[in-house]
């Protein structure tokens, strides 16, 4: 990818750099971070994730499956035990709960894979192994003459290493 990659030493330095780069019109940044950081998300103006919706759908699916599995099959295979009604809600709630939890978790994981577009075999050309250790990376996409000004801007924001990529 064509652009400029800056390496940063600290989380706060990275957040400051993101804010300055975005203020300068570079909105389409790729950020690499060794830790989860709400500060970076805020600086990138990211406030939501669809994972919750997936989890909710999973939960509803699980609960519905629990109802169908317990009540449905008890009616399908009628056998009175303990003198209880065929559809005995109190014990069936346990199965509904377990399946709600189970499918919420599974749907959540699927959502993570879908929305992060994982798994991938080949890592980004702009990814560096330092970014999983103690450095933060900001990649600024830039073409042609724009790369020069982007490089200067990245230097000005305090990057400890600056790379220009083709």
């Amino acid at each position, binding site marked *: 990818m064509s652009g400029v990659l800056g390496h940063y030493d600290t989380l706060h330095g990275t957040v400051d750099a993101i804010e300055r780069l975005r203020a300068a019109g570079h909105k389409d940044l790729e950020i690499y971070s060794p830790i989860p950081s709400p500060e970076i998300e805020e600086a990138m103006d990211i406030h939501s*994730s669809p994972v919750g919706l997936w989890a909710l759908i999973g939960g509803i699916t699980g609960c519905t499956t629990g109802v169908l599995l317990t009540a449905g099959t008890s009616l399908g295979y009628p056998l009175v035990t303990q003198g209880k009604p065929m559809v005995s809600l109190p014990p069936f709630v346990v199965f509904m709960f377990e399946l709600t939890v189970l499918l919420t978790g599974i749907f959540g994981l699927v959502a993570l894979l879908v929305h992060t577009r994982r798994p991938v075999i080949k890592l980004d050309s702009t990814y560096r192994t330092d970014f999983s250790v103690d450095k933060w990376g900001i990649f600024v996409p830039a073409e042609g003459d724009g790369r020069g000004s982007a490089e200067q801007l990245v230097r000005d924001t305090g990057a400890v290493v600056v790379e220009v990529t083709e």
Partner: protein
Amino acid sequence: MATAEMDTPRRHLTLADANRDITRPIAKPQGRYWILLLTTMAGIGLGAGAWFYQIAVGLGVAGITHPVMWGVYITTFVFWVGIAHSGTLISAILYLFRSGWRTTINRSAEAMTIFAVMTAGLFPLIHLGRVWYFYYLMPYPSQRQIWPDFRSPLVMDVFAVTTYLTISALFWYVGLIPDLAVLRDKVKGVRYKIYGALSLGWQGTVREWRHYRRLYLYMAGIATPLVLSVHSVVSWDFALSIVPGWHSTIFAPYFVAGAIYSGVAMVMTLMIPLRWAFRLEDYVTEDHFENMSKLLLLTGTIVGFAYATEFFIAWYSADPIEIESFKWRATGAYALPFWAMVFCNVVIPQTLWFRKIRRSVRALFALAIFVNIGMWYERFVIFVTSLAHEYEPGGWGIYTPSWVEIAILIGSFCWFFFWFLLFAKTLPVISIAEVKEHLAHEQHGES
């Protein structure tokens, strides 16, 4: 992720230090490791051999017989399910409460959870005797026209334990993904490919972290009620019967407290030698053990209170059968296991009121071993004394475990430790991302 207040490490650490120190144990194993691993494999061989013998000869080689049909196998099943509890407790509940001290122990505790459930899951199969008929328990349309009874707590148990295993494994794996990427970036060759595949190509982009953080939060949210539900369901296997000593409304909270109690003790049993062997004193400090000790003291006191409540309710009910059952529990043929249970679970943990004990790693290790033993005895006492001494004197009997049951019990411990040893040498025993998150904020003087 939890950043609020991880206890301060002993020396000033950088993010690179955390990477280096926590991944250091993942290297070529040395002699001591192989000795431990081979010992556990020998124990597994012993247990597996005894199980095959039981399969070949029949369930009669186990000591279980009328009236005690639930003996060492079900005792050990409940023991391991209990052990499994604190892993998710530490990961999920303490995460939601932003208790930063969980940060350096949650990974190992979660691993312990998974291996404990894997161990527990073997026992219903072993207890079946004719294990090849296991599929009768599965709900599927068949010519036999039978279907699992969804009103039975035994079927609830199957769903609860398998859900717990699946969610705990997912929660553990999700937490591991960023750390697997750290390992991938550190190694070469085949190991690069393995860690690369397991990390799913994680690069720590803002998009990845955004979804990851949400998923971790939701996972913690759903795992919290799950922790409470699983051992409640296990307790209903007993409480929903009419056996004296079992038919009690306090069983669910009593079992949940006992499970957390035994689980925290097992976390200590594992973390103390691990911390020493992997030189992780800068990360797992006395402060962590003191916090765990407080949890141990709280849950141990609840368990002691539950023991007293059982006896009080038996007396207060004025039911002669119930009174006789509990009197016999404390003074009958199983008085020794009963008083061993009281000594290990109620008396010894009261020493944790002293700060000096709470901060002494050696004392805590010894105490945790006592609690482990006491909690196994607790299940043995509850199940065996109640079944051995039910309503009719003509139906009373004494149960003695056979060598086959003892061998399988030993094998189960070896099976558990075998997986934990493999884990300790192949994956980070402390969450690197969470420790670094704390350190990164600490750099800026944030608590």
